């Protein structure tokens, strides 16, 4: 099944480019200290806000720090939050979704109301509130994002489990005396993985976007940790002449978010049997 999906996915050139791009960004994030030309936190007040040149390829910020090095290290923050928040959302969402889909009835009803409640809140209000009031850090951002964005995953999982639970293999497992938890975790969830990965890909894109928005607003990862949104936050103060502070980090956020969105979108198309 996976090879069929892969073949359909790879038919889209855009999807393959996006996948390679995510690979490159991940590589940059992992090897950041090795490839960054300078220490991202080393200040040089003699070279404040200097435009891109041969020494500072992407210019410097208000404290004379090398923007290229801060961008390279910033990839870490974006990807760590993107992946970890999505993982948390997946765990919480799969749990609620599986219970709702498998047991139906009252369990389904309660989970549905819970999702309804979460969806009533403006997403950014909740995340901003949790992060700022509980003191901004990598952990609070991850937890706030994870706890507020699990609803999509829950609905995906619920739908899949509902579809799978009465198929022959599930009935066979039940007939052979498997416990509910074993049926859910060993038999149903692994089969629900593919559609859930679609929502996870969109989830990573959203998490990166929200993290950079928080850093931009000054309530994201604490300074001086380099982050893409953080550079943009400085850019806002010097917008009248420091164009390089605006263009490069914003482009990095945009392309990374777009890549994850494209992957999710094309992956969803690849899963859709009607696409052939």
């Amino acid at each position: 099944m996976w090879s069929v999906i892969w073949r359909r996915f790879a038919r889209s050139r855009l999807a393959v480019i996006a996948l390679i791009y995510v690979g490159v960004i991940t590589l940059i994030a992992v090897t950041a200290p090795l490839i960054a030309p300078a220490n991202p936190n080393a200040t040089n007040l003699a070279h404040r806000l200097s435009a891109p040149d041969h020494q500072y390829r992407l210019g410097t910020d208000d404290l004379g720090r090398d923007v290229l090095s801060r961008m390279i290290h910033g990839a870490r923050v974006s990807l760590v939050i993107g992946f970890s928040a999505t993982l948390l959302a997946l765990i919480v969402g799969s749990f609620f979704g599986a219970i709702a889909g498998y047991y139906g009835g009252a369990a389904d009803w309660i989970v549905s109301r819970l999702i309804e409640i979460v969806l009533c809140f403006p997403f950014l209000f909740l995340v901003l509130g949790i992060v700022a009031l509980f003191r901004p850090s990598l952990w609070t951002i991850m937890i706030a994002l994870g706890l507020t964005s699990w609803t999509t995953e829950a609905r995906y999982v619920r739908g899949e489990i509902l579809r799978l639970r009465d198929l022959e293999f599930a009935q066979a497992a039940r007939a052979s005396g498997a416990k509910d938890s074993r049926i859910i975790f060993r038999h149903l969830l692994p089969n629900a993985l593919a559609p859930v990965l679609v929502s996870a890909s969109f989830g990573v894109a959203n998490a990166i976007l929200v993290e950079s928005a928080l850093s931009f607003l000054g309530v994201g990862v604490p300074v001086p940790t380099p982050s893409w949104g953080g550079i943009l936050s400085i850019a806002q103060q010097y917008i009248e002449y420091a164009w390089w502070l605006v263009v490069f980090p914003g482009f990095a956020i945009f392309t990374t978010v777009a890549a994850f969105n494209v992957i999710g979108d094309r992956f969803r198309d690849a899963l859709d049997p009607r696409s052939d």
Partner: protein
Amino acid sequence: MTAYVVRRCLYAVLTFVGITIATFALIHAVPGDPITFYLSNHMNPSRPALEAIRHEYHLDEPLVTQYVYWAKGVMTFDFGRSTLDRRPVRERILNKLPNTLLLNFIAFLLAALIGLPIGLWSAARSGRALERASAVGFFLLYSLPSFWVALLLMQLFAIRLDILPIFGMTSDEYPTLSAMQQLADRARHLILPVITLSYAQLAIYVRFSKSALTEVIRQDFITTARAKGATPAAVMWRHALRNALIPLVTLLGLTIPSLISGSVIVEAIFQWDGIGHLYFESILSRDYPTVLGLTVATAIVTLFASLFADVLYAVADPRIRFGGDTP
């Protein structure tokens, strides 16, 4: 029909209770109360003064009692007084609301008026080269961070070209202008924030209306209409479009929270004096009554919008109200 509406309303009441409990629990899980913040602002307040404040905000009573006091207030839209300037929270929200509504309404209209026709066009021309290119374009649009777009717009139109104001809602000389000039001044200040708010929505409307129409076109009754010899235009306008517009109603409930979320960022960047700005300031100054009030108020607005959308949906589509219980 009545049974369906009654059931939806009962759910809404339950959701309302859930919303208030969730908000209240969240804010009380936060370390420190308004008093600690008051302390850091005012040096050495007297003990009786502190006790008086604690008493006014019911902080000296058990949590459940505090919740009951607060929830009672919420019912009558009384969210207490701001700890920042002691004005009623309701008054502060209502003061800023028109500014946010103006911005969001124009952005919504713009996005819907441009987005829906493009979406319908995309569904009708699905798969052709131009449609595929535009689909990728709108998809990328959706991934653009709004704060980046805002900064780029500022840099281009307010600094490089210097033809639009960089931020604010009116110019400094606003009070001295004539009525017509005032209107023009306000309009000029609206342009950049409206663009920033509407482009992402535009992408959503295109996508949503396209998928709604595509879904309808695949159904049997469209094949029947074609088979009986209806012209393609008649199939599109008489049969497909009508049915495709029904799911669009649900967008109503879905977009309001994301609009409000977007307002926080846009209003912060453009220094637009609306509720998004108010929320952000209240968060930073730990003005709990305002944070609580705004959160609950926006959630309730969303709740009503989605209730309204659901009922409208049931009116438009009999399958919903006569169908089974879809949770």
